[in-house]
């Protein structure tokens, strides 16, 4: 499903929230899938009658604020970690790769707060790979690679 289609669906679901709450029940599987893509976590397991309405409202508000979908964010801050950049405070719930890159360029010491680092642009403009599997495979092939890089991988 394209991002535009997903956003359109969420907007349509939000428009139906005022209707019978049971109307969203038929869309439970779709809402759960969308919630994971947008918010990056599974919908909590409970029998609260408003759980689907709350989920739709949360996704709608998230997208309306212009925040990126979780599936599009590669980097991850550790639980509890916050970073300050551009007068804003970011945590694992609202960090974006773009902000993470800029913040790390300004303050490299933030690196220890990340569970997964974003793709950092190299000097020639190419993005450095942070794909864990690829990097692990690379390290396995070249075990004598720099200790610094090996340490970074271990931290994840």
């Amino acid at each position, binding site marked *: 499903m394209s991002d535009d289609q997903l956003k359109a669906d969420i907007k349509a679901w939000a428009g139906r929230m005022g209707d019978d709450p049971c109307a969203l029940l038929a869309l439970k599987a779709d809402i759960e899938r969308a919630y994971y893509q947008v918010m990056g976590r599974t919908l909590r397991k409970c029998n609260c009658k408003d759980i689907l309405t709350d989920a739709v409202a949360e996704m709608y508000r998230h997208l309306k604020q212009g925040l990126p979908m979780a599936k599009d964010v590669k980097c991850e801050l550790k*639980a*509890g970690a*916050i970073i300050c950049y551009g007068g804003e405070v970011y945590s694992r719930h609202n960090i974006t790769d773009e902000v993470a890159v800029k913040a790390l360029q300004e303050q490299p010491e933030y690196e*220890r707060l990340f*569970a997964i680092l974003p793709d950092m642009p190299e000097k020639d403009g190419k993005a450095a790979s942070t794909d864990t599997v690829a990097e692990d495979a690379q390290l396995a092939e070249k075990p004598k690679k720099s200790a610094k890089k090996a340490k970074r991988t271990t931290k994840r």
Partner: protein
Amino acid sequence: MAINYCDTLLAADIAQDCSNPIIKGIERRGVIINRADVDTITQSGNIVSAITLKSGKTGFNIVQPAASPFNGTQIAMEEGTYVNTFTNTVSFVILDNSPAVGTIINALANGDYIVILENKHKGGTAGNATYQIFGLQQGLTGSEITCEKYSDDTMGGWQVTLTETGATEAAVFFYVTSLSTTKTAFEALVSDPDDDE
């Protein structure tokens, strides 16, 4: 050189803050963290300004009924032979019973935890008394866990009491530069934040 006896000396007036009168009670949501999952803690005196968990680890919400949340939570001084310490007690109910709850109870009975609670008394404009940490020094462990099937209070659910003994700080607070930043850091501890707060 004078010998340092490490005596604790009083250095401030003891008085009521008339502009911010004390308010009893705790808000209905707290966060519990496995002590083993803690990566780093930044602390100055009795204020913690950062708690970071290890990669892949997370804190968990404790949500209580609106009436008297975390009822029974208290701090009490214990007289020691040479040093007096504090016993922190955190009490909460789990108004549920299921295989999943049984697994949680097993963990609570044998684990070692830090709990962060939100006081109703925020501590004035700075709000630095909002979040209070229990179990930071020695860890909270299960001291009394009961499931009374005919209890009118828990309706057959679980009553849990976690206790930390031997803490040398009477009260430890969680505060990061401002209340709003502290809230962001607090919410960052859990996977399922409360966006409405």
